[in-house]
């Protein structure tokens, strides 16, 4: 009984992290039609920037997290400007932007290695101490992540569904020409979408930096998990992506309990293949 509760809680924690990661991928995809391979690297940049401000300069964790979010957002906007924007409307834009964001991933990873070195780093926790949930013990920091993720997702959803600026992102995603005709600044919308997604990645990184070690390659495993999430959920809608993130997180936690850490990635992967064979646009995606 205890182990089931503990597994549930760790699954929800994983789901929260995947939801924060994958929602950024989803925002960029729905607005720009670009899959950002550098998303995990932006998360890593957020973690390192948070570490520099918080530990390197000794300014404390909250300014550190803010710096991490801001740095990642800035990197995102620069990536959009230099590596995505020149290729809008070209024939193989989807394929080309996969390659340019891969290039961005390599530049960020190797750049981080040159700047911060290979030594492992870690952030302190937001709140020290543990909390017990129905007999399952997790740290307060992890509990805060679990509580924070739905709030952030809700704010993101409110932004894209309820505000004019957020709606303009969706309009641009649906039809760029029509959006431009009614006076939406399309390039500005692209920059906003990319910056917003990068900020989400930076926030995830800064939060994760207290639980895991910060390394130049820390973003690649979450990126692959976020990919599995968007394959399950389809890339098109924020709600489906977030839902899929929690499903995958819980599934992963229970698979680790049942078949062990080594075989879990395979089970998830086989499941993903099975989903794609029957639903080529994702489990919750529309055909």
């Amino acid at each position, binding site marked *: 009984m205890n182990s089931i509760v503990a597994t549930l809680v760790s699954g929800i924690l994983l789901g929260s992290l995947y939801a924060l990661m994958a929602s950024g991928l989803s925002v960029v995809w729905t607005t720009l039609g670009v899959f950002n391979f550098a998303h995990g690297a932006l998360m890593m940049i957020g973690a390192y920037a948070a570490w520099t401000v918080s530990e390197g300069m000794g300014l404390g964790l909250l300014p550190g997290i803010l710096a991490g979010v801001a740095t990642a957002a800035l990197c995102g906007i620069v990536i959009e400007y230099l590596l995505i924007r020149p290729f809008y409307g070209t024939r193989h834009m989807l394929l080309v932007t996969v390659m340019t964001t891969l290039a961005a991933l*390599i530049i960020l990873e190797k750049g981080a290695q040159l700047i911060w070195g290979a030594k492992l780093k870690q952030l302190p926790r937001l709140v020290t101490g543990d909390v017990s949930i129905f007999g399952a013990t997790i740290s307060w920091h992890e509990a805060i992540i679990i509580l924070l993720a739905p709030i952030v997702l809700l704010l993101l959803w409110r932004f894209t569904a309820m505000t004019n600026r957020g709606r303009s992102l969706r309009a641009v995603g649906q039809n760029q020409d029509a959006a431009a005709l009614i006076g939406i600044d399309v390039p500005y919308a692209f920059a906003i979408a990319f910056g917003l997604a990068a900020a989400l990645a930076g926030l995830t990184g800064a939060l994760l930096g207290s639980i895991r070690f910060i390394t130049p390659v820390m973003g*690649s495993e979450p990126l692959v998990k976020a990919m599995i999430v968007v394959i399950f959920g389809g890339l098109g809608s924020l709600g489906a992506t977030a839902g899929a993130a929690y499903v995958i997180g819980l599934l992963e936690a229970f698979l680790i309990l049942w078949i062990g850490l080594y075989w879990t990635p395979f089970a998830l*992967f086989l499941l993903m293949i099975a989903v794609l064979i029957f639903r080529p646009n994702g489990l919750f995606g529309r055909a």
Partner: protein
Amino acid sequence: MTSSLRRFAPLLALALLLVVPFLATDSYTRHLFIIAFIYAIVAANWNLSLGYCGVFNFGHLTFFGVGVYTAAIAAKTFGITPWLAIPLGGITAAGAAFLIAAPVARLKGIYVVLVTFAVSQLAMQLVLSQSQITGGGEGMVRIPFLQLGDYSFIRDFKFGYYYVALGLLVLSTLFLRFVVQSPFGKALLAVRDAQDYSTARGISVSRQRILVLVLSAIFTGIAGGFYAIYLRVASPEVFGFGTMSLVLSMVLLGGVGTLYGPIAAALALTFLTEALAGIQGFEEARFIVVAVVMVLILRLAPGGLVSLLDRLRPSRPAS
């Protein structure tokens, strides 16, 4: 004039490459050529699926890695002669390609990228987690090397290895030439350029994609097997972003959808990155240079450098 030059240029290049070991007698220069030949095979075969068929395959290095570990395990753990272990890499790589291709053939657009990419990450995790078989993150070392009777191929400053690598490159190129010029190869171009029309004319796109992935894996896996036997190590880095971006930049620089472009690009980029690695503090930064080169090619010459050359000539129908 230009067309006959085009026909004989590869033969001329081959003749030059055949005499290189007599001009470059040190083992380091020969080593660079051998590594470049291996990358050339991988890049040219990747071009078959990415460039000719238009499959958004981002897991091509998985086939290479499968070849590397097949040869390493066969030769070291099971004591199979390296002469057999190397082609065995091609067989397992083709098998892996078939398994991946079956679901990928039905997918479209970004989902092909995601699944093929996820496969390569999964392969890396498999290698890392099964450390009792693969050596995990440490990799495998002291893999048996090529021998013919009493003659070791490492001797004479890698003289023997040079010609084995060149021979593999020639075989792979002849194979790709045969595939591209066959009716099947023409059908590939037809589907890439006008999918709806070709489907209407009776070409099965998913069958074609499966076949292309399997065909492109054969020599990639053999190259991987040779890589493991030649370097005598197998490490999970072969699945990493660094190797992938390097080979991808070769495909892009050489021109997507050309036969010899990636080979020339592989030679050029191998020597460039090795030169950079020699500069103090550039061991890691050279990958940044490769990434920047990749973006610049996409920005300035999307058809690769070959397309720039073509632009200088009087226009002719694309071949």
